């Protein structure tokens, strides 16, 4: 197996090439995920680019992204595979019509074979012959019991189908799992993954992101926006502003042709940045306070 990336540095440059400004840790962990053939578990607050990381890695390696969106009540038939029983029924009925002489064993072998199998994301990723990136999104939403479904795929890159045998991966795909940390993931799952905590970016990097993603913004305004967001994040809020909300705010200010941010403008446009009424009030109060 040939490694996909030269060095952590190279990963960072590739990510930048597709417009994802990563920090060194993110690049290093992605690099390791490839070298060690291990899934990467990305955890952190909402809106820090966890899902985007997987998408960007797919884009930069020219791989197909296969996404399993987790939700409460996700089961085997939605995550791994399902037998297409309607097609199986048709097959049995067709036999009765055409009156072919076939033993039950032959028939059984036939209807539990490849053409009747409907692969779901995990099996699809395992069977793929083209390069793929598997994204298991919001893994903390499934119940602890369902997590076990993932373990075989994540550690051995294989799926066992009782009627057919074990399907082994022809290549080791890059796997990313994201979690918003609404519950503690099981030790078994964590042990199989490399762990990456993505937090809000430091002001320098967020400024870079704003400059890259908001066309026509002046450097001085970007600077003010980012620093104000940082101040707001330091408050106790129900939901701190995410990077995408910072970008929305910056875009709004550009559209309003604001070139210099002052407290009054900031307060009037806070609703772009914050989504809870009490948060907006809290931040507005902070912004009119006198320094110190």
């Amino acid at each position, binding site marked *: 197996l040939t490694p996909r990336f030269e060095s952590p540095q190279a990963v960072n440059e590739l990510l930048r090439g597709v417009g994802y400004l990563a920090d060194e840790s993110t690049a290093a962990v992605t690099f390791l995920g490839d070298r060690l053939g291990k899934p990467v*578990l990305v955890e952190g607050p909402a809106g820090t680019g966890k899902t985007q990381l997987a998408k960007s890695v797919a884009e930069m390696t020219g791989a197909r992204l296969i996404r399993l969106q987790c939700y409460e009540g996700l089961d085997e038939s939605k995550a791994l595979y399902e037998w297409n029983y309607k097609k199986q029924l048709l097959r049995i009925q067709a036999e009765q019509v055409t009156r072919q002489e076939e033993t039950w064993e032959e028939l059984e072998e036939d209807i539990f074979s490849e053409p009747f199998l409907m692969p779901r994301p995990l099996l699809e990723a395992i069977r793929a012959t083209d390069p793929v990136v598997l994204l298991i999104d919001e893994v903390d939403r499934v119940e602890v019991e369902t997590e076990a479904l993932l373990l075989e795929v994540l550690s051995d890159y294989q799926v066992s189908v009782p009627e057919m045998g074990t399907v082994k991966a022809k290549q080791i795909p890059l796997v990313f799992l994201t979690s918003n940390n609404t519950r503690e993931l099981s030790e078994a799952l964590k*042990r199989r993954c490399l762990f990456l905590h993505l937090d809000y970016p430091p002001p320098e990097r967020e400024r870079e992101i704003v400059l890259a993603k908001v066309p026509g913004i002046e450097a001085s305004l970007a600077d*003010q926006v980012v620093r104000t967001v*940082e101040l707001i994040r330091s408050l106790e809020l129900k939901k701190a502003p995410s990077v995408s909300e910072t970008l929305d705010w910056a875009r709004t200010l550009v559209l309003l042709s604001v070139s210099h941010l002052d407290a009054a403008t900031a307060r009037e446009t806070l609703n772009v940045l914050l989504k809870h009424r009490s948060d907006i009030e809290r931040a507005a109060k902070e912004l009119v306070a006198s320094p110190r």
Partner: protein
Amino acid sequence: MSAGAQLAGGLLDRFSGFVAELRAAGIPISTTEVVDATEALRHLPLEDRTALKAGLAAALVKQDGHRQVFDIMFELYFSLQPAGPQALFDGLSGGGTGAGTEDLTARELAELAYQALVDGSPEMMAALARSAVDRFAGMEAGRPVGGSYYVFKTLRQLEADQLLDQMMSSATEAGQLEGLLLANEYRRHFGSLREHVEAEVRRRLVADRGAQAVARTLRRPLPEDVDFMHLDRDELAALQRNLQPLARKLAVHLARKRRQRRRGRLDFRATMRRSLSNGGAPAEPVFRSPHPSKPELWALADISGSVAAFARFTLQLVYALSSQFSRTRAWAFIDGIDEVTDLLKGSDDISQAVHNINTQADVIWTEGHSDYGHALTDFVQRWGREVTGRTTVLVLGDARNNYHSVHPSAMAEIAERAHNVWWLNPEPRAYWDTGDSVLAQYGAHCAGVWECRNLRQLRHFVEQLP
């Protein structure tokens, strides 16, 4: 060939010392994870410290709360080279002779400190920390003094507090919003200077005593093991950050369990419809999905003197919960009881909320020593009828009743009406039901009583809920 065989022996030794130290600090690291990390060492460019640190952390530390301990230990075991380019500092000091800072007076050094604090670049901070420790800490080889003594000495002689004051007043002149932003940044830079000085002192201690000895002096409980009763200010702040996600977990958990437990009635129409694809045999019954129910949490918190430290935590927890549950109500009690829901919801942050409760809530009935019996009886009389089958009641307190009458019937009545009653006790289990503690009499009516002295126990409580 094994991963280890390709690594220099010295590095591997250092690495196993490092892992042992992390384990000693309480971070759970399995053998698989050690193997992964060793493998990672083989692939990562060793000269790139940031990548090395990130890679090892990814393989070894699977919880964000443990990252701080990891960072400090990593620095002790793997980053002994002086940090930051000397040249930068020479350039700044205008010397350019490469002689460093020995020629500078304390006054000049303070001016440089001012610049570094305003600018906040890590290279400048590191250089400043290095020369400040050189000049002020007076570190001597073999002297058995803890690192914090040197840190304190350095920062005091650098007159860092005055510097901050000076900077803050300059921030005030910069205009309203700009001033706020600057003040916020300066505070952050100041914290970062402290960290750099600490790191520098640790680096020198390691050079003197060896990584393992220093690591031992730095051993401190992990954030989740710190006792609620003895929190310092930083730990209190850390606790606050940790409580919010826990409260969310509790909320998610309650909502989930309720949804799962109740299976809806059979949906006859949908079952028939689906049976058509099986030739009319109703092979898969379809059930109506149950009504999403809103969990309702009522918290009763003892805020008397005996649990004063715990009470602050209690209120923090309740405050965090109230932002997660649609219907949270809170009561505070000592020997009287008063609803504090509005006081909690109406305040911007927890310190204000605690202040409001301490000044405005009517929780003292006669003498101001806990009287669970009276408080609970009073609660049942005034709010008992509002407790319904959807209500979960959470009692936080040590059940030390000061030998007043117990009135367990009040608890029984609450338990009968409510969906569930849980009790969290900040006392070690060994002290329960000793002296004036009457936990057993109330506990008999609760669905469960948990010892809750640190975050680990609280997390355990949240996760194992039936």
